[in-house]
């Protein structure tokens, strides 16, 4: 008689998660700088696993209303919207202005970026960041933050450091890094522990950390936070390599040694 091992049993035997990753491994991260070549400003497309976010940055430019401008620094005009096919499983059409979660994500993104961009260099101006979530498989806010960072770099706006983001969570006492949608969704009627965290990796400072679930003790919080920061550092390695590669390509194109083709996935 033959017995067949179910895939879930196989994964739990070797202590792997439901997509085959180890608990401290992040998903495959692909970065593309400047996919929309014709637009003024900068753009970046970031894929964390299957979650895809596209950020477009314009500016620094004039404020729309005189009353908005600040005399000593620039303002950040952030908008996060999702394509109708960019929600979890089914297709939903929502207005980006009224969907509460998207407005909240835009608010967090703005706070994170305000701590990173050198706003004092452009008084009375406005930098517009628009993030479009094309696919959501968990970690939507983090993909948006990473995409916004890369787009700001592509636009040449001066920043203190990269602002990288990654989620961390808890699954029965094992800390997980970079959760996908299945791990983020609540099980057993209790909300899952999800902590999206954004930090400036070279300075080692945390810009954003948010958790809405109940944790057993403060020690657990420290562990999950530490795991999130490790995840952020892993993301930083990849982002930095992508930016360096793009800069080398641009430099050699300017010298005439290479030419830039249309950016492709």
């Amino acid at each position: 008689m033959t017995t067949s091992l179910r895939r879930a049993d196989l994964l739990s035997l070797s202590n792997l998660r439901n997509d085959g990753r180890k608990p401290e491994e992040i998903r495959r991260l692909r970065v593309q700088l400047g996919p929309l070549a014709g637009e003024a400003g900068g753009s970046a497309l970031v894929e964390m696993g299957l979650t895809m976010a596209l950020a477009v940055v314009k500016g620094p430019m004039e404020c729309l209303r005189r009353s908005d401008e600040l005399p000593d620094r620039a303002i950040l005009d952030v908008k996060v919207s999702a394509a109708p096919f960019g929600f979890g499983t089914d297709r939903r059409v929502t207005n980006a202005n009224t969907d509460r979660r998207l407005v909240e994500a835009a608010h967090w993104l703005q706070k994170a970026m305000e701590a990173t961009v050198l706003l004092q260099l452009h008084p009375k101006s406005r930098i517009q960041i628009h993030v479009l979530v094309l696919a959501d498989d968990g970690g939507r806010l983090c993909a948006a933050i990473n995409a916004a960072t890369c787009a700001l770099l592509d636009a040449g706006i001066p920043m203190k450091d990269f602002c990288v983001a990654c989620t961390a969570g808890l699954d029965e006492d094992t800390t997980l890094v970079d959760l996908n949608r299945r791990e983020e969704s609540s099980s057993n009627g209790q909300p899952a522990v999800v902590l999206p965290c954004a930090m400036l990796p070279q300075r080692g400072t945390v810009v954003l950390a948010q958790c809405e679930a109940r944790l057993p003790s403060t020690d657990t919080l420290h562990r999950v936070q530490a795991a999130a920061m490790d995840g952020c550092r892993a993301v930083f390695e990849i982002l930095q390599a992508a930016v360096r590669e793009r800069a080398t390509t641009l430099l050699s194109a300017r010298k005439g040694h290479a030419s830039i083709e249309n950016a492709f996935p």
Partner: protein
Amino acid sequence: MASGLALQLSESEKLYLIDGCADNCRLDGREREDIRQYTIVTSSETTSADGHPPLMLSNGSARLILSSSGSTSTHILCSVKVEVMTPSQSQPNQGNLIVHVEDSLAANSSLSRKKNEEDRNRVQSIISELLATNLIDLESLCIIPYHYAFNVSVDVEILSGTAGSIIDACCHAIRAALQNTLLPKVVPSSIVNDAGTSMDPVGSSSSDLMLESDLSLAQTPSGIDNAAVVVTVTVCHRALTNSYLLLLDASLEEEACCFCQVHVAVDAREGTEPTICALRKTGNGSLPWELLPEITALAVKAVPMAKSSFRVAGSSRNNASLLQTQLDIQ
């Protein structure tokens, strides 16, 4: 003109452009009836081994890039999502297809919000009116008449529209996405066997339908190869000679100084005469009646060119989408 990106050109620039068209040499050197080559991406890697479609979580997707003179580009992303629903009472044998076009990245200044709304709705209404009924065979989407049918949602996202010709590009992207869509084979479980449990991940119809997990039985929606193609003919008026010039595949500058545009949906299948499915005129100019046959003849002539003037980046069809991994789990 069809999107909120209308350029402002001075009178002398417009005159220069139109005179060039009269001499059969447009701004980028093309002739009046030349169309630009566009690129369709339906898989991310150039080698067919490891490629996956642009949007893994959708049933089908395609990306279209049209770039002219290197600095401007029209970039369109199209996604097709399929779900099971109850067909309407008036048409119990048919599924449903809706097309939705969105331009989320358009500059959203509050000063011209009303104009942006109008422009966005214009592209959406043109494409859904011209194309929605002429894309695939709706009767093939039916699973069980009166009970279950497929609802296909086609969502187009305009990522960048600076190279003009947005409506034509959306039409090609929709076509490419539908050609790469796989509809899972769904069988009523009463036919299969009574004792079998159904593993239907859709949820609501779990006791009546069974999903075939063999991906080779999944099929593309039928009728897509004979789908209508939209051709936009731009009409420019030359005041000097009081003549009308017809252009194909207009760039943003040409759209800014045109008289009006006519969007024609042509159904050209093998072996039969091409037929015109739908026609829509946009723009402020009043079109002389005698020009209409010329315009439609030009549109019909352009269809074979439009269908073939693209190159595919990456392998054109691959089945390694998420559908496969979902169905492969034990």
